[in-house]
């Protein structure tokens, strides 16, 4: 049963149930019909009995009774009569019964009601017989009336035959209809299977066609479509990421290779060799930074980063970072101020959290022109520590806002020569903050400035399930 397709299972169940129903129905009809036929026979016998008894009562002497009986019942369609006296001698019988006798049937005693019995009488087949005792003109008489059951048996046999013949045919028609219906009902499933088979990485734009979006299969198809869409989106993201990563990794390699190849084409002065080697060193450093950042993100993604869990005094941390970054801001002529900094502690990895704020402030300073201002505010809000970094910088255009946390994403692609990384800084910030069950959010308007809000739960814990590695690192 397990190996059958749903279509066949449905059909078999349907057929099985129908067969049971048909059998029950036939059995009931057969029983009721034969019962009714028998009742009609008994009713006929009763009527004849009443006729015979009225003759028996009407006549005072046996001779006239016999004459009347002969006249009325000697040739009576369908019924046979036999009347015996108290000694069992035959008093009257219709001619057909000369050879046969209904004497097997016992007459009922006295004034008891007539007795009905079904008997097999030799070659004559089965008979329905009614017998009653009555006071005759001279002596008590036993009246027996019989009716052959041949017709009855013929009729019931035909009924049975009809059932046996039409039942299987009905079943066959119904089962093939059921199979057809099951196939029809399951057709959309087939279509879904075919489409799903066609969908590959190259063809994620394909969708399952939905005929009736409200029925069960329609809902299934739509759900699958939504899933395919999510797949397509993440594949696109992956593709973009790979393309960007390839670009970021190949560019420094290309620069180095070209520099070195060109230099080696002829002999150069020592200074020139120095210059090329220094360029190579710069590019190597860039690649090293990128490798570090990518590894960090990969580990964070995989939950392999061994994040320390310790109580971080946030006011100290913020103050340290801000004081350090004030040097950088001061050199650019940007004012950097720590506006509010109440004393709070959260749980997490202080190294990672510090690098987040260094990164955010570094960005803020980079994109804020001279004489601009950056403010850092920290406050407790609803069990969370909220750190807001607001600058009066150039801002981020609307269309870039949603993507600035994407890996390798740059608002200005021309800045790709930037020493401080390959557009991974903000991704790392987001990854760290989320790893601490926090949230980072950006609001910006062009030429007005950017505000970054970092929310961290005050009872922070890592969202990563503690792996054995983590436990080891902490022990």
């Amino acid at each position, binding site marked *: 049963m397990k190996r059958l397709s749903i279509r066949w299972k449905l059909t078999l169940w349907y057929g099985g149930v129908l067969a049971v129903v048909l059998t029950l129905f036939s059995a009931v009809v057969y029983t009721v019909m034969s019962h009714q036929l028998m009742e009609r026979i008994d009713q006929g016998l009763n009527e004849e009995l009443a006729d015979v008894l009225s003759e028996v009562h009407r006549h005072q002497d046996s001779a006239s009774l016999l004459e009347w009986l002969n006249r009325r019942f000697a040739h009576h369609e369908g019924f046979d009569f036999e009347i015996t006296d108290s000694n069992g001698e035959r008093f009257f019988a219709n001619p057909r019964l000369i050879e046969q006798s209904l004497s097997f049937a016992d007459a009922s005693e006295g004034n008891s009601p007539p007795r009905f019995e079904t008997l097999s009488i030799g070659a004559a087949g089965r008979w329905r017989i009614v017998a009653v005792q009555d006071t005759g003109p001279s002596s008590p008489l036993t009246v027996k009336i019989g009716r052959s059951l041949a017709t009855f048996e013929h009729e019931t046999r035909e009924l049975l035959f009809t059932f046996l013949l039409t039942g299987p045919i009905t079943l066959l028609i119904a089962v093939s209809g059921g199979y057809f219906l099951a196939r029809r009902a399951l057709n959309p499933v087939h279509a879904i299977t075919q489409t799903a088979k066609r969908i590959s990485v190259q063809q994620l734009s394909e969708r399952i066609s939905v005929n009736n979006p409200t029925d069960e299969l329609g809902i299934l198809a739509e759900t699958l479509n939504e899933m395919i869409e999510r797949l397509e989106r993440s594949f696109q993201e992956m593709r973009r990421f790979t393309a960007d990563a390839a670009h970021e990794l190949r560019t420094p390699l290309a620069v180095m290779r070209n520099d070195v190849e060109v230099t080696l084409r002829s002999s150069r002065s020592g200074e020139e060799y120095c210059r090329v080697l*220094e360029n190579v*060193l*710069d590019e*190597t*450093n860039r690649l*090293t*930074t990128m490798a570090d950042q990518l*590894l960090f993100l990969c*580990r964070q993604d995989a939950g*392999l980063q*061994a994040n320390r869990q310790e109580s971080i005094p946030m006011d100290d941390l913020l103050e340290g970072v801000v004081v*350090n*970054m004030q*040097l*950088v801001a001061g*050199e650019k002529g940007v004012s950097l101020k720590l506006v509010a900094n109440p004393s709070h502690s959260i749980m997490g990895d202080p*190294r990672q959290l*510090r*690098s987040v704020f*260094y*990164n955010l*402030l*570094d960005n803020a300073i980079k994109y804020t022109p001279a004489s601009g201002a950056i403010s850092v505010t920290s406050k407790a809000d609803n069990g969370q520590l909220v750190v807001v970094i607001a600058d009066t910088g150039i801002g981020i255009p609307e269309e870039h806002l949603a993507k600035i946390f994407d890996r390798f994403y740059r608002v200005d692609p021309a800045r790709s020569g930037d*020493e*401080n*990384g390959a557009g991974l*800084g903000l991704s790392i910030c987001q990854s760290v903050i989320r790893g601490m069950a926090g949230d980072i959010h950006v609001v910006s308007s062009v030429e007005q400035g950017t505000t970054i809000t970092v929310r961290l739960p005050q009872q922070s814990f890592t969202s990563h399930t503690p792996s054995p*590695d983590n436990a*080891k*690192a902490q022990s």
Partner: protein
Amino acid sequence: MHRLLVVEDQKRLLASLRQGLEEEGYEVATASTGEEGYFLATTEPCDGVVLDLMLPKRDGLQVLKELRSHGFTKPVLILTSRDAVEDRVAGLDAGADDYLVKPFAFAELLARLRALFRRNVGDRELVLRADDLEMDFLERRVVRDGVELDLSKREFELLEYLLRHKNQTVTRDMIGRDVWNEPDGLWTNVIDVCVNALRKKVEQPGHRQIIQTVRGVGYVLRDHQ
């Protein structure tokens, strides 16, 4: 001078390490497999080992454990491309004195080796000098050419670090770690800014330039005397 054993399976890295270390005055023996490294460490005299972890035949960690269990007490510096905390812990547990993650700055390798061989000499001097610059820790003041310099706390610490490593190149990572106490380094140019500010104060017009930038590596404070 110190005699070093360098065990590293990448031929080019081994060659450049040998050249660099020899130019720094070390005597260098090399091995390119774990077996060979173990053999040399136990048969030849040496003052320290630079050991790669991923080695053919016998893993660096295994070599280290066996060396330590056979009473090898000389300092061992591990080179590894595995920088996860548990790898570092495993290395240090196996008996390493220090570790360095590839790719590393050669200047940092030199600094670490110096630290391993240092015998606390000149480490806690009360007055440090370079050229005509003098740093007095008792009075906490810096004087150059008879003029006292007004340095911030951070600039003071930075100058002290450069003076303690005078004539040695220090990387930004080292400065970030040792002066700023940021073990992962600073992903920002705060060090450059601070060095520039320090330079402006230390190298007034007419003074010789003593803090030099080593492009792609870091800084060095040169004592010309």
